[in-house]
């Protein structure tokens, strides 16, 4: 993302400025109110004014009244609106506290004679002014902090290129990206963003896909490779054919999924919602009851004390902190995931992900690359390794077998020469034969060798050992003499071993599930450190095996490819789909990993845990604050220690409690992904 900024200094600067300007306009009423508030508060603090000390300083009445109805632009009307719909919120509480203080002060100012003693005729205009200022300051800080919380989604939206250069009627033309249609040929030059998803048709380049997949290293692209909209072309120019445009692009779908997840509800919040529905009215009732008790049994002047307690109680309670505790952390957590190529579908998925006990990994394509590769070349009887490989690759070049491709690629990688073949012949169930450079070559299993009367000798033992390691060995004979063995295997992804170790360290039981035979399965499992293996599992039985582990009373996550594994993903408590390129909206999955490797699984579970920990901290903080603050505000400490909170302290506490919650959630932004 930083790199992005450097590459487009002007556009980004312009965006930042306009975004800041937008934020500023929103803040202007707050700032104006704040300046007034601070001014008024300062006057009181500087003059050391206590209520009732200057009963003659009456000029406050009109100001305070004006303040109550003007600078409360947000509070009073909102409170009234809420009242009309018979609901109560933070604004209702603060506004009613302030109205009570204002009413009392006004009566004391206009009709001091109604009070039996002058002592009672104190005025609380300062309370009205300072509390308002504090609440507004708190809100301003909260708005600022919240802007940060939603940064992830703004970044994603900002990734979209604004224009695309397409070839139409033989000429290159700049058009808005919305107007690109499927099958358009799009030209991308170095330093430009790829506007939509598609497939390269011409040219080569390296593309920075970190913003979508989380993969830090630029990916090389050539013809037939997929490119993703929103990624940045780095070195060369290329042309690609648009395949997905508009709302179908990976980026658009990612944005949609993140927005959906951020607006979904974590189950933990249902409880909070029930409480917050009762919270504000309950506080009002508590305030009134405290007023009665202080009036009836409190010290003199009882009316003043009762009023202070009423106002303090109303002001200190903060349903807001409780209400935002969960959604704000969720928003940051889900956004953080998206930044790292982890798409969490909902709050419920996030909450379940941190409770997992077991994780089931599909072998092929999840632990392994899902594509066989050449692993061993063993030459015997005086043959040279490269000669053996060269001849094998030449024969296999003509074959269409998937293992053949692995041998050919292996030969290319080792820079071994591949020659043309004559009279190629595939022998079903056994292997292939062909003539290369005048040499007759046989390649296949032991049956093929036996039928040709070729002696394998001690190599049979070597072959068995290779098979035990999960590899597929093939025998090679040249001009009717045994030449050696070439072996291919589906190789383990680089990070699989460390990711499995991480998962185990996190207290998860790691289980491998595969359709392969037990021997191959065990061999791979050993390589990555998995002890529990379900082998020979038919595709339709995968879900059943997941259920088996669930029956042990465990919460199970299944990691698979989202197409063949859909039923198992759906059966699991959490389905983690490993996506490939632009295919991100996988229905059956709760979490989609855009980058297809296992360290993404570690990160996904880790971020769920961090987010839920943050949620619990927030909820605890908010509950603790309210259950502690309310009794103190009602004067519970007064009989024992003579402590009574001033409404101003209450206002400050209330204003900063929700800021604290948002700030705590924002700590998640600094969270670093566990990478193995």
């Amino acid at each position: 993302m930083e790199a992005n900024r450097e590459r487009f200094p002007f556009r980004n600067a312009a965006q930042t400025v306009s975004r800041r300007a937008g934020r500023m306009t929103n803040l202007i009423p707050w700032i104006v109110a704040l300046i007034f508030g601070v001014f008024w508060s300062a006057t009181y603090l500087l003059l050391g004014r206590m209520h009732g000390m200057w009963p003659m300083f009456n000029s406050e009445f009109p100001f305070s009244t004006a303040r109550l109805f003007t600078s409360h632009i947000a509070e009073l009307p909102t409170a009234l609106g809420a009242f009309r719909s018979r609901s109560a919120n933070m604004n209702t509480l603060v506004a009613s506290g302030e109205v009570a203080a204002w009413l009392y002060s006004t009566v004391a100012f206009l009709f001091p004679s109604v009070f039996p003693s002058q002592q009672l005729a104190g005025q609380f205009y300062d309370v009205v002014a300072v509390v308002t200022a504090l609440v507004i300051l708190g809100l301003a800080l909260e708005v600022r902090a919240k802007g940060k919380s939603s940064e992830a989604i703004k970044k994603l939206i900002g990734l979209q290129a604004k224009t695309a250069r397409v070839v139409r009627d033989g000429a290159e033309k700049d058009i808005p990206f919305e107007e690109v249609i499927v099958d358009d040929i799009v030209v991308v030059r170095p330093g430009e963003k790829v506007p939509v998803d598609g497939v390269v048709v011409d040219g080569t380049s390296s593309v920075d896909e970190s913003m979508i997949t989380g993969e830090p290293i630029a990916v090389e692209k050539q013809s037939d490779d997929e490119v993703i909209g929103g990624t940045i072309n780095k070195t060369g120019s290329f042309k690609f054919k648009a395949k997905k445009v508009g709302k179908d692009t990976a980026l658009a779908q990612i944005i949609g999924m993140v927005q959906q997840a951020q607006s979904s509800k974590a189950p933990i919040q249902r409880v909070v919602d029930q409480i917050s529905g009762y919270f504000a009215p309950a506080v009002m009732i508590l305030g009134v009851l405290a007023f009665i008790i202080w009036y009836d049994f409190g010290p003199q002047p009882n009316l003043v004390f009762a009023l202070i307690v009423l106002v303090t109680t109303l002001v200190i309670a903060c349903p807001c902190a409780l209400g935002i505790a969960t959604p704000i952390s969720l928003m940051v957590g889900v956004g953080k995931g998206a930044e790292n190529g982890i798409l969490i579908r909902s709050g419920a998925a996030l909450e379940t992900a941190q409770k997992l006990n077991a994780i089931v990994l599909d072998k092929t394509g999840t632990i392994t690359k899902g594509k066989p590769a050449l692993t061993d070349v063993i030459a015997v009887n005086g043959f040279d390794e490269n000669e053996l490989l060269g001849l094998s690759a030449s024969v296999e070049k003509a074959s269409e077998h998937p293992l053949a491709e692995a041998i050919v690629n292996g030969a290319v990688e080792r820079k071994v020469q591949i020659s043309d073949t004559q009279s190629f012949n595939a022998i079903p169930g056994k292997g292939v034969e062909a003539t290369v450079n005048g040499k007759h070559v046989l390649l296949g299993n032991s049956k093929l060798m036996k039928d040709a009367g070729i002696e394998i000798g001690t190599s049979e033992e070597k072959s068995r050992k290779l098979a035990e390691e999960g590899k597929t060995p093939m025998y090679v004979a040249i001009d009717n003499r045994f030449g050696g063995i070439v072996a291919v295997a589906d190789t383990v992804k680089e990070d699989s071993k460390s990711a499995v170790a991480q998962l185990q360290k996190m207290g998860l039981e790691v289980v491998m599930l595969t359709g392969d035979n037990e021997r191959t399965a065990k061999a791979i499992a050993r390589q990555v450190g998995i002890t529990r293996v379900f082998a020979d599992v038919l595709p339709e039985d995968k879900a059943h095996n997941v259920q088996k582990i669930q029956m042990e009373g465990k919460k199970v996550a299944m990691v698979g490819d989202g197409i063949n594994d859909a039923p198992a993903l759906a059966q699991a408590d959490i389905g983690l789909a490993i996506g490939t390129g632009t295919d991100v909206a996988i229905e059956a999955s709760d979490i989609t990993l855009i980058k297809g490797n296992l360290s993404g699984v570690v990160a996904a579970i880790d971020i769920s845990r961090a987010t839920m920990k943050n949620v619990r901290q927030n909820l605890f903080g908010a509950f603790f604050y309210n259950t502690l603050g309310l009794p103190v505000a009602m004067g519970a400490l007064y009989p024992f220690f003579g402590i009574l909170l001033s409404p101003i302290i209450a206002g400050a506490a209330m204003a900063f409690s929700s800021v604290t919650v948002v700030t705590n959630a924002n700590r998640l932004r600094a969270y670093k992904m566990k990478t193995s």
Partner: protein
Amino acid sequence: MTIDRILVTIAGLSLSGWIGWFFWFSERKSTKVETMESGIQEVVIKVKGGYSPDVITVEKGRPVRLNFYREETAVCSEQVLFPDFNKQAMLVPFKTIPVEFTPDREGEFGFQCGMGMLHGKIIVE
């Protein structure tokens, strides 16, 4: 106990009772949504410190369009969430923002602001 104390106690207790009744037990009017010629159930919801109307009755299986009109700039109500339908919308002040969905099951579904302070309810029949 002096007469003023008795009066304050009685007044306070009745006020508490009234608060409880007003916010928790008083009957809320539900607005039945009209079906337009197009077959869409459409209603305008005013947003100002709360949702008005806040209880909306709709028919199952027919598309619903709720047109939110936010009459305030207070940040509290800038977002409206439908957690049961995984839907959300940013409400631009003084602009009609439609939220559309088709309820496929009966029951009561809440909607709320981003902080869960303002609440409304959709009753699907």
